[in-house]
């Protein structure tokens, strides 16, 4: 079988079931679940095959001419697989969670149809071989996510949807401008480790700088860089599986991934440093990290706090990439995975608290650890991981970012990390302490038992198992970071294989 077909198969493993689900009547629950899980499982298996192939060193490429000189290119390198396998694994988990979460609620066919479209677009982004392809999937993702954000149809959800669309479509336009301009300037090259713009550095330095800013504005909206982040905390009104999708699997990650691609595979770290672009990006990332944490501290709503925390944490990825040294890039790239696993755990937990006990605010969490110990344990693992305590995933990131900052000769970044850890502790420890050590006097209000009857575990098993799985994953990827196939091991492989980074001589 030709390598290109495998990439298409991965794309269609979610697109096919997604389109089929649109035409399913609402009551065909069993078939819909089978299609969902079948698609997610198939994708997981195919990504596994691709992973093994790329590890062997095989080439995978699919190309389709769009216009003269411009091709739609799908290609698989180690970096695309990092993102593709992250979204494949987390999509499977989120699908299970979403089936449990939406049980008995209306308009599920629409929901799961767009849900699958979203993930197809995400995988398309991961496997894109050039900027044009990237842009196409990026815009599909924007449009496919909107119905999910407004799924509940409440005024707040509609407002969040409008805001989301306003921000992302505008940024899409900026991105379109920048990419068209860049293609006119340099042709529709594929992503190249080390970049493909060196030839233009002498003649078009200012143009390249302007283009970089435009690209960052374009991607920065989805990556929630300050001051383009405001849609994200408002979009938290969406159902919990959608928040997981926005924050961990697809949307925010797509923005961050775009920035990684631009810095490393379009401009190249050397050129980006030379033009003074990484310095600016670094400052923006640092500001975003601190600002997000301060805003998270000010809110009592659990999901909003998590959303502001995403604003802060995703910028760790940007920070690592902007450090443009091997250790910093390792820290940034590995956080793509670590932030995803950790944040999805936290959003699942928030969803469980809201669904099972009707808890939406941190001040209501007192004593929840006794009623829902496993969910609370997962929440604790997620929160401590976000603070960056070993042996959880977040620590691996923080350690590499710290070393990367020193390697790049920028100790002030270490100060930013320290301040951010303090702020993270300040907003993540109180809910953990309330959950375990707080006292609740009155009995719990149980909306889930109210409409679904008593459950065998502390909540519906389809809500509980994904949480436990992702929390365990967050612990394992940190604890066994030294293994070759851990995210850290894979990222180290990327840095060695794909990147030509200045000053890499260990």
């Amino acid at each position, binding site marked *: 079988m030709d390598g290109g077909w495998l990439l298409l198969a991965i794309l269609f493993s979610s697109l096919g079931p997604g389109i089929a689900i649109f035409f399913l009547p609402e009551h065909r629950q069993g078939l819909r679940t089978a299609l969902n899980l079948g698609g997610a499982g198939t994708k997981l298996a195919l990504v596994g095959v691709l992973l093994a192939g790329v590890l062997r060193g095989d080439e995978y490429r699919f190309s389709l001419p769009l216009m003269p000189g411009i091709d739609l290119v799908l290609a698989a390198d180690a970096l695309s697989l990092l993102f593709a396998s992250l979204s494949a694994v987390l999509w499977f988990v989120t699908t299970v969670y979403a089936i449990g979460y939406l049980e008995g609620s209306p308009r599920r066919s629409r929901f799961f149809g767009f849900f699958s479209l979203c993930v197809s677009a995400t995988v398309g982004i991961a496997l894109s071989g050039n900027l044009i392809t990237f842009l196409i999937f990026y815009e599909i993702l924007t449009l496919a996510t909107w119905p999910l954000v407004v799924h509940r149809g409440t005024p707040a959800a509609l407002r969040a949807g409008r805001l989301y669309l306003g921000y992302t479509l*505008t940024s899409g336009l900026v991105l379109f401008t920048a990419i068209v301009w860049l293609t006119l300037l340099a042709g529709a090259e594929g992503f190249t480790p080390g970049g493909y713009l060196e030839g233009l550095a002498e003649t078009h330095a200012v143009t390249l700088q302007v283009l970089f800013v435009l690209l960052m504005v374009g991607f920065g909206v989805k990556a929630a860089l300050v001051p383009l982040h405001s849609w994200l905390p*408002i979009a938290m009104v969406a159902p919990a599986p959608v928040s997981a999708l926005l924050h961990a699997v697809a949307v925010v990650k797509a923005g961050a991934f775009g920035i990684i691609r631009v810095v490393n595979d379009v401009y190249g770290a050397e050129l980006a440093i030379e033009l003074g672009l990484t310095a600016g990006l670094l400052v923006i990332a640092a500001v975003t990290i601190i600002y997000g944490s301060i805003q998270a501290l000010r809110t009592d709503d659990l999901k909003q706090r998590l959303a502001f925390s995403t604003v802060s944490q995703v910028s760790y990825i940007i920070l690592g990439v902007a450090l443009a040294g091997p250790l910093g890039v390792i820290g940034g790239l590995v956080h793509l995975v670590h932030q995803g696993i950790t944040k999805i755990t936290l959003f699942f937990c928030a969803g469980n608290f809201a669904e099972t006990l009707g808890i939406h605010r941190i001040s209501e969490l007192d004593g929840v650890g006794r009623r829902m110990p496993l969910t609370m344990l997962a929440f604790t693992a997620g929160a401590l991981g976000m603070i960056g*305590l070993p042996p959880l995933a977040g*620590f*691996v990131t923080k350690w590499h970012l710290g070393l990367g900052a020193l390697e790049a000769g920028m100790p002030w970044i270490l100060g930013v990390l320290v301040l951010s850890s*303090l702020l993270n502790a300040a907003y993540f420890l109180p809910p953990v302490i309330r959950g375990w050590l707080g006292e609740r006097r009155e009995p719990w209000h149980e909306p889930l038992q109210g409409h679904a009857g008593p459950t065998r575990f502390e909540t519906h098993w389809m809500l509980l198992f994904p949480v436990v799985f992702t929390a365990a994953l967050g612990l394992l990827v940190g604890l*066994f970071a030294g293994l070759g196939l851990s995210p850290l091991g894979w990222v180290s492989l990327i840095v060695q294989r794909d990147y030509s980074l200045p000053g890499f001589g260990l």
Partner: protein
Amino acid sequence: MSGVLLLAVPLVPLMLAVFIGLRPGRARLNRLVPWAALPGLALAALAPPGLEATFSSLLMGTHLAVDPTGRAFLGLTAGLWLAAGLFALSDRRDDPRRHRFYVFWLLALAGNLGLILAQDAIAFYLFFSLMSLSAYGLVIHSGKPEAWRAGRIYLILAVIGEVFLFAGLVLAAHAAGQSSLAAVAAARPEGWAQVLLVLGLGIKAGMLPLHFWLPLAHPAAPVPASAVLSGAMIKAGLLGWMRLLPIDAAGHAALGEALVLLGLAAAFLGVAVGVLQVRPKTILAYSSISQMGLMTTGIGLALLLPEARGWLLAAVTLYAVHHGLAKGALFLTAGMQRQWPVARPARAAFALFTLLPALALAGLPFTSGALAKNALKEPLAAEALSGWLAHTEWLLTLAAAGTTVLLLRFLWRWRADLETATDGLDRPRWWAWGGLSLMALLLPLATLLAGPTALPLSVHDLYGSSLLWPVMLGLGLALLAWRGVRDRETPRVPEGDLAVLAEAAWDSVRRTRRRLALPGPWPPRIPARMRALRLGARRRLEAAERMLTRWETIGLLFSAAMLGLYLTLLAG
């Protein structure tokens, strides 16, 4: 095989914590809690020299080992946790929330044992944070308002210490090029790395002026938890210093002098504030600050006197073991107030077990304190130090007088609430407490018979006039104070001295903020400008966040983007 042995030490308590957490109803599991420290104790006693193991796939490579210093600390830690655990079993028997207590107990135990075995920066940080954060659960366990307050201050300082330690370790590991503790120490952390490591670990060790969480947290915890907090966990910072500071390199005179100064200051200020307290456990906590000051001085001296380094480090280790056991026993004493027996021989034993650790801390000849104090002062006998440092030996001796006064104050306050045991003696408590107390006599014997090679002590080190006169002086001072001061019941300095100031400052900041939220018709005059600035900044922050969600903003951005697109196409 050695890997399994080493990993078992922290893993056994961890597993037990998981089991108790999952099955809180099982009484049989609870009975295992004290024995979770047993693998550590066995390893300290029986491990062959040079036992080590490397796990390359755990974290970013983990290295565990038992070295001579670690062995002493491991023995102290595991032994104290075992005794305090036995005490806790009977102390917590009727506590409805005892499972929660045991889970935090075991987690903190795992961290405390693990950090002693850890030989690389990441594992050390892992176990250090596990211990620090789990101890929070022990501090607030009683659920009283004072415990919550103590816990809050403890947690804030613990987290600050943690991030300092993290930053210091990153800086040091970057300079060393690898993350093993030996390499980090050999690369001599300097500048910021040094400051951050000293502060980050110093918070745990109760170093001045970051000590103020300690007199709040240690007394707030239940008795057995106070014993391990003050006896074992406090030593983690000290061990970290011994592992990470550039002790094998001369030329760190500034750091050495700073540590000697801070240590001596803590030794005397701890006593001065402690005698003004009324609650027995608070007095003991201040005594811990004072005693940790003596050990800090020892570390500083090791930096200043390169030729006596090996001796001094061994002496500090001995001192740490001595203090840990004696202070643990004294905290258990504080929990024996309702156990005053009726029978005469039992009363004699009660008095012996009470007085022995107190006398050992004061340094009475033939106790562990005598040996530890003499060992610490031995290298100072010659004219080794110049300037004000030449008085160090004399000051160290004088500190013992302060300790005597402080412990008399403790015994006097403790005695006031002594009650006869009505329903028989609680044997497990007696065993744990008596065993720890007797260590004050057994430790010097063991050290003399099978002591470390770096510390060749003899029987002559068990006595000396420099041990006796400070105790006498202390007794005299205490008598004078007893005669001179009428009101001996009122606390003169609030518990947690500086914490009160910090809280007051924080409160005033908050009050200002609250006043900002509701500006009255006539804002106060003087700091009005500052307040206006703060208010303005706060409003601007909110306005910015609101602005970004307005349609005009997005519309503007959208038009700009369209314009850009048009210009691009025009240019193309």
